């Protein structure tokens, strides 16, 4: 991110800058009973998540499995029922939309999934697959739709003859291009990329990332970019939220997050992803947490990260820290944020 963009983040954005405003989003799933007559347990997949996405920017969500990043994406896309909270998209709370109203609103927000093969109907040709959203939303005349398909294929870097081929005739990278063309078809404002490059080989991953960047530049697209790969997130995102067990634990412009991370969980993630060398060894020794993330079923009170946090104190186990501003534009949910400060993450490299 450029310095100008970084400074822009420090000012409260004008309302029209905000394309998506998620307020206190909660998604719980039922998880059976504890014992035959016990209370019903709940998976707290997303537990009070708030964030804003500025138009034309990329908002990254990182975290390990079970952190709720994909559930957040699916809730924003209205693909799963929301337990509580608002999802204000371009001024409308789409969490309240139902039926036809929701169906028509969908043309403005689209999603690209991790596995492009299972996202495409194997019995339909590429052209029909890309045209499908236009058909379903009744956009344009049949001739216009046909022309638009050709244009979309070209935009995502597929040859025109691709239209008559079936998904299995494409490579993984080409299939992901098809999925992107499909998502682009109704000219959305927002595209959610849920681990959209994670299953691809590194060379292909770079091609798809560059394609997404170019489309963003040309069309002013806004992205929510979900990934577990911090290097990719740093490269691709303007703002980043770090999620852990259904909560955002830290959120900041990418430049601020990676130059001076503040939450112990972010330290651990960064230590695990640091480039090889002496720095990585030091970070891993000091900050990498042990064990696996605990289950999001009925999480304990207090900080969700307390169980694994090397800096835990009693208060962390009792009291849930709220996500609060630590410096301009940098939000952290940790009781000890002031005390722990921002440790040295790479000076002297």
């Amino acid at each position, binding site marked *: *991110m*450029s*310095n100008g963009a*970084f400074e822009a983040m420090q000012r409260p954005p004008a309302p029209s800058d905000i394309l998506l405003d998620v307020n206190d989003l909660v998604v719980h799933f039922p998880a059976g009973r504890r014992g035959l007559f016990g209370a019903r347990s709940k998976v707290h997949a997303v537990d009070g998540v708030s964030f804003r996405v500025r138009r034309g920017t990329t908002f990254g969500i990182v975290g*390990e*499995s079970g952190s709720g990043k994909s559930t957040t994406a699916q809730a924003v896309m209205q693909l799963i029922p929301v337990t509580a909270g608002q999802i204000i998209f371009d001024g409308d709370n789409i969490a309240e939309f139902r039926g036809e109203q929701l169906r028509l609103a969908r043309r403005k927000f689209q999603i690209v999934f991790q596995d492009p093969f299972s996202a495409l109907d194997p019995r339909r040709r590429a052209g029909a697959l890309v045209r499908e959203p236009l058909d379903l939303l009744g956009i344009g005349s049949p001739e216009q739709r046909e022309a638009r398909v050709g244009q979309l294929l070209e935009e995502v870097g597929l040859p025109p003859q691709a239209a008559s081929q079936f998904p299995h005739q494409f*490579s*993984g*990278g*080409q299939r992901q291009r098809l999925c992107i063309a499909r998502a682009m078809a109704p000219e959305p404002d927002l595209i959610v990329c849920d681990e959209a490059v994670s299953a691809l*080989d*590194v*060379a*292909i*991953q*770079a*091609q798809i*990332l*560059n394609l997404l*960047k170019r489309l963003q530049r040309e069309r002013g697209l806004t992205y929510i970019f979900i990934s*577990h*790969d*911090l*290097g*990719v997130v*740093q*490269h*691709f995102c303007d703002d980043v939220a770090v999620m852990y067990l259904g909560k955002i634990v830290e959120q900041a412009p*990418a*430049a601020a*997050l*990676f*130059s001076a991370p503040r939450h112990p969980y972010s330290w*651990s*993630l*960064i*230590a*695990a*992803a*640091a*480039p*090889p060398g002496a*720095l*990585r060894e030091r970070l*891993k020794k000091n900050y*990498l*947490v*042990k*064990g*696996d*993330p605990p289950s999001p079923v009925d999480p304990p009170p207090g900080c969700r990260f307390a169980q694994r946090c090397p800096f835990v104190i009693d208060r962390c186990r009792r009291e849930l820290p709220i996500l609060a501003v630590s410096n301009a534009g940098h939000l952290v949910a940790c009781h000890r944020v002031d005390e722990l400060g921002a440790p*040295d*993450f*790479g*000076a002297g*490299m």
Partner: protein
Amino acid sequence: MTAPVLSVRNLSVSMQGSNGAVAVLENLSFDVAQGATMALVGESGCGKSMTALAIMRLLPEDFTVTSGSIMLDGEDVLGAAPAQLRALRGNRMSMIFQEPMTALNPLYTVGDQIGEVLRQHRGLSRRDATEQAINFLKVVQIPAAGQRVRAYPHQLSGGMRQRVMIAMALACRPRLLIADEPTTALDATVQAQIFDLLGELQDETRTAIVLITHDLGAVAELADDVAVLYAGRCIEKGPADQVILHARHPYTRGLMACVPQLKLGPAARTAPHSLDEIPGMVPPLGARGAECAFLPRCAFAGEVCRSRQQPPLDAVDSGAAVSCWRHREITP
């Protein structure tokens, strides 16, 4: 220098397709010494996993080894009779896979599955095997090993399942361990733990490891040597630090450049540059010509590359070797 644990010489594998045999691996040679780690890197379809399966003699039905040899401690793996193979696998060479859930039997406890290896190869009684299994679970740092030994795979997290796989694979202290993308399905913090664990166990057991991965960070951290595969051919190999820091082949350099490296500290405040990409994709099986397979994607391709056959591996100082006609001209 002592004899290597694993010695692969001129290994070629082909697949029986509908239009005749197609080369999958061509002329692959490498050695792995005791206690050393050899990484095989490259994109999907380059033959990394096929190499592993050939060593384990687990190639799918349509695939055959057309030439070459694979020696494990001087013993011919390719010529081994079924009984000999059973004695080799699990005992002197073993393998861990990418997806621990599909590699573990969901109907048996993890203790039974680790114990099975010991009962088969070491002739331990059921009780002794279970006792040993608990010890191995402790070695791979699974908490509450005494209880976990009775757990079924679905009751464990992904990271713990991969630890169980490692315990199983190392139960007989094999001479050779093949790790095929052992952490790809795991979270980043768990990945780092698994790599640390593999490194620690290797220091102790002196097992030779063949690590198959696309994660160049893992290569830099774990591997002593690297072989970069492209379209079934080895295009660059050598000591890991040489190949990683001073890559010569345009493909290896491209692979390094297209991975966004995490920048930390003050460097994280600089604007990201646009990502280098390697255009096109790995040529599919059967569509590979006699010339350099990377030619259609190579930014440095010249007349010499088009007019000549696949370049041989050319040894350079520092112990590396690279298969590129122009590497001496284009290496910065």
